[in-house]
């Protein structure tokens, strides 16, 4: 008898089908839930979200990656926080007083603060944290703000006093971003290499429950939280590097929350009624803006007419529609629209190609036979550099098209980040870049715009140099009175807009998709975003996922 391989194949296939059937849960019914308008607040439950990267560690001053700061932010507290309108609010400190000469800040801690292990949290911990961040042996890139403190002391367990050499207005902000660490655990540890970084004890709403390397980080509500209890008992962050996989997990109901992109928000969700039934979409203005920056030390960008012409020639609304599918806003200053520092009287350069043409002619450019502008035999053209970021690449293409229409020849080059920074930005070897800056909460932008900050590795790499702006930035650092400070930065924003050293392109929305089982999310999102009150969110018992544990 001969052996028939085709039979073997048929058998294998049958076997595979059998295996598939055996391991399937045989539950193909999609249940639909009728969500009520409101639910009774119930504590407990497990909120599962997805993140693309694993935290490198949970000590924020050393970590630096966003995954770390998100998770550490749930475990640790700072002295001060930003409230939902992005104003300062008490966190560990119940109040802070600035001395008359504006050089000394006295923080008074709240009563009855505890670490998650039950040890009292005192001003000694704050002093210890300050010493740690300023210690030259500590591997932190964030020391410089804290090195400005001349003297720090903790005269009693509730008081922490810092004195600066000179008035330093961003000081308050720096104390809103320094997580206070426990002295009693870390005093004999090497902060650069400590078990604590993956097993932290904090004072925040949550404490670490379990960290499965490369897979998930689970936090558990901290019963001794310095800010009162959080509603949801467990926060699980699953590490899923691919956003398409995250999306599949969301649609299969295995995760509750993920960040989505404009295409998913505008195209996928509206087309899927089954998803709309169980998932809410949220949008909030993000914390950054995207810009086209010029190398001001180079021709032709040293000419303000050229910069303004380019600004008029770019249609920002088109970029927002094309790149973000409308999910963004134009900006005219480096501050978040709707916040105190944003000068609402400013508006972006409108799209006006005729004005662009006349400005270029005023700058001495003439059109040549091929329709491109030319001066002294040199064609007006440049290269836009950007890093591997889809939105920035698309933005560069739209900019290229609009500039080509008025007669400027633009090429685009996309480069991996580390090479981009070291080969081009640090050396000043570029014409123009599409990049992003954060819409900072404190208005101080000295490091980005002051003319002294142009050295290699510093942040004024475009070479912006304006004496009046320098003066405003210096004044703004010394002024603690918010309304006076506001005037200074209004003026600063005006200069920045009129000088046009960069073209503000857009501030995109942060987009989240959240399963409807999560209740208590504020909508529309306040300036601080939907996450600012995540400790108030809750998952009603009846909507909880059926889990093996918890």
């Amino acid at each position: 008898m001969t052996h028939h391989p085709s039979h073997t194949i048929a058998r294998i296939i049958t076997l595979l089908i059998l295996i598939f059937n055996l391991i399937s849960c045989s539950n193909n019914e999609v249940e639909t839930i009728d969500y009520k308008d409101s639910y009774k607040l119930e504590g407990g439950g497990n909120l599962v979200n997805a993140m693309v990267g694993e935290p490198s560690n949970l000590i924020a001053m050393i970590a630096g990656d966003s995954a770390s700061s998100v998770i550490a932010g749930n475990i640790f507290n700072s002295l001060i926080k930003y409230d939902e309108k992005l104003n300062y609010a008490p966190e560990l400190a119940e109040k802070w007083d600035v001395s008359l000469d504006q050089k000394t800040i006295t923080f008074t801690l709240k009563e009855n603060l505890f670490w998650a292990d039950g040890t009292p949290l005192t001003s000694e911990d704050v002093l210890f944290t300050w010493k740690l961040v300023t210690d030259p042996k500590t591997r932190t890139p964030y020391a410089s703000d804290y090195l400005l403190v001349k003297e720090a002391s903790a005269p009693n367990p509730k008081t922490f006093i810092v004195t600066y050499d000179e008035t330093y207005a961003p000081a308050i902000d720096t104390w809103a971003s320094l997580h206070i660490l426990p002295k009693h655990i870390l005093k004999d540890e090497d902060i650069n290499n400590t078990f604590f970084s993956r097993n932290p004890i904090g004072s925040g709403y949550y404490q670490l429950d379990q960290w499965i390397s490369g897979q998930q980080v689970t936090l558990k509500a901290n019963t001794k939280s310095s800010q009162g209890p959080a509603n949801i008992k467990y926060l699980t962050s699953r590490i899923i590097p691919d956003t398409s996989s995250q999306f599949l997990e969301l649609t299969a109901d295995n995760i509750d929350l993920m960040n989505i992109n404009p295409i998913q928000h505008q195209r996928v969700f509206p087309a899927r009624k089954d998803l709309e039934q169980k998932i809410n979409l949220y949008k909030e203005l993000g914390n950054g803006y995207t810009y086209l920056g010029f190398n001001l030390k180079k021709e032709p960008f040293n000419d303000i007419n050229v910069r303004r012409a380019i600004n008029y020639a770019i249609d920002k609304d088109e970029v927002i529609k094309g790149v973000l599918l409308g999910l963004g806003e134009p900006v005219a200053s480096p501050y978040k629209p709707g916040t105190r520092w944003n000068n609402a009287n400013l508006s972006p350069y409108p799209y006006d190609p005729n004005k662009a043409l006349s400005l270029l002619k005023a700058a001495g450019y003439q059109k040549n036979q091929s329709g491109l502008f030319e001066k002294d035999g040199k064609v007006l053209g440049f290269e836009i550099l950007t890093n591997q970021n889809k939105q920035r690449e698309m933005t560069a293409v739209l900019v290229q098209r609009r500039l080509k229409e008025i007669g400027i020849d633009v090429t685009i080059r996309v480069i991996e980040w580390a090479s981009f920074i070291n080969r081009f930005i640090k050396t000043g070897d570029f014409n123009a870049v599409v990049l992003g800056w954060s819409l900072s909460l404190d208005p101080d932008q000295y490091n980005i715009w002051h003319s002294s900050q142009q050295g290699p590795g510093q942040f004024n790499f475009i070479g912006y140099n304006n004496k009046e702006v320098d003066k405003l930035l210096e004044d703004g650092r010394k002024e603690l009175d918010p309304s006076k400070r506001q005037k200074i930065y209004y003026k600063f924003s005006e200069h920045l807009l009129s000088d046009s050293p960069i073209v503000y392109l857009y501030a995109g929305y942060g987009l989240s998709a959240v399963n409807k089982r999560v209740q208590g999310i504020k909508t529309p999102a306040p300036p601080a975003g939907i996450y600012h009150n995540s400790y108030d969110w809750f998952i009603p018992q009846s909507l909880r996922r059926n889990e093996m544990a918890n």
Partner: protein
Amino acid sequence: MLKYLIKRILWMFPMLIGISLISFFIMHLAPGDVTSNESSFNPKASEESRQKLRELYNLDKPVMVQYGLWLKRIVKLDFGRSFSSHQRPVLWEEKDKNGNITKGLIQESLPITLLINLLGIFIIFSISIVLGTASAIKQNTWVDRSITLFVFVGFAIPGFWLALLLMYWTGVANQWLPISGLHSQGYLSLDLFSQTLDLLKHLVLPVFVSSLSGLAGISLYVRNGMLDVLHQDFITTARSKGLSEKRVIFVHALKNAILPLITIVGLSIPGLIGGSVIAESIFAIPGMGKLFYDSVLMRDFPVIMGILTIGSVLTLFGNLLADLGYAWADPRVRKGIIK
């Protein structure tokens, strides 16, 4: 034979130094270091602080000096500590003075990658031998052609695309299999059997997708080897002796046809520790591919060098094992009739 073996092993050392030297320099040719990743492009992180970090990591020293420092550690089998993940040991766990254990990066990523690759190789080889033999016996029939078509389609299909389709089909539309990750929520409360079953369920898709592309190569090797053997005199002799066709093919022919596979198995040994970045990202598996890729993006030199060193040692050993295995399996090689 023993002399040959010792000579081969001694040769590995200069080879390893050469490989590590070249890798070290190529790695440093790429602009940037661990202080210049995207999240550190932050006005709050000053250039002075970053310079200080560079000094702490010895990145300010000339490359030759850095290589010397690395070599000095590696001869003591000290793979160093990662820059980007808070000084975690690169290779193996360490205990601090309080007895707390911090696991090594490779230690955590390697087991899952090995498991997936071993399962993959096992599946690839068993299916390929069946498919290859079948198409050789049925040469130029529809069976042969459809097998060839199938393995080439498997080879040509983009893995990420197939992975997403299968994830949707088995995970979202039907909920037969988990979509991504290695464990279900709360798997720690399960007993060992259910934990293993849970892990295996999570591995079905990753192993299937990564095996599919490997079928083409191996099954064609088997097919061609089989065809060669079937045309040789001893097969004709066997048939003329009146042996059953089954015995001719499975005892006499197959043994000889799969001999070349020994070389391939040997050469796949270094591949065992390498994972696919794309598959690992899509299935959210914290394996070696993702570890290496992330380390390159972060310019985490100790981790890159650690993985490269282990990879090159395994490559050299794999080659040696393949040669030895060949000698063991083929008396003609052993007796020096053919090389």
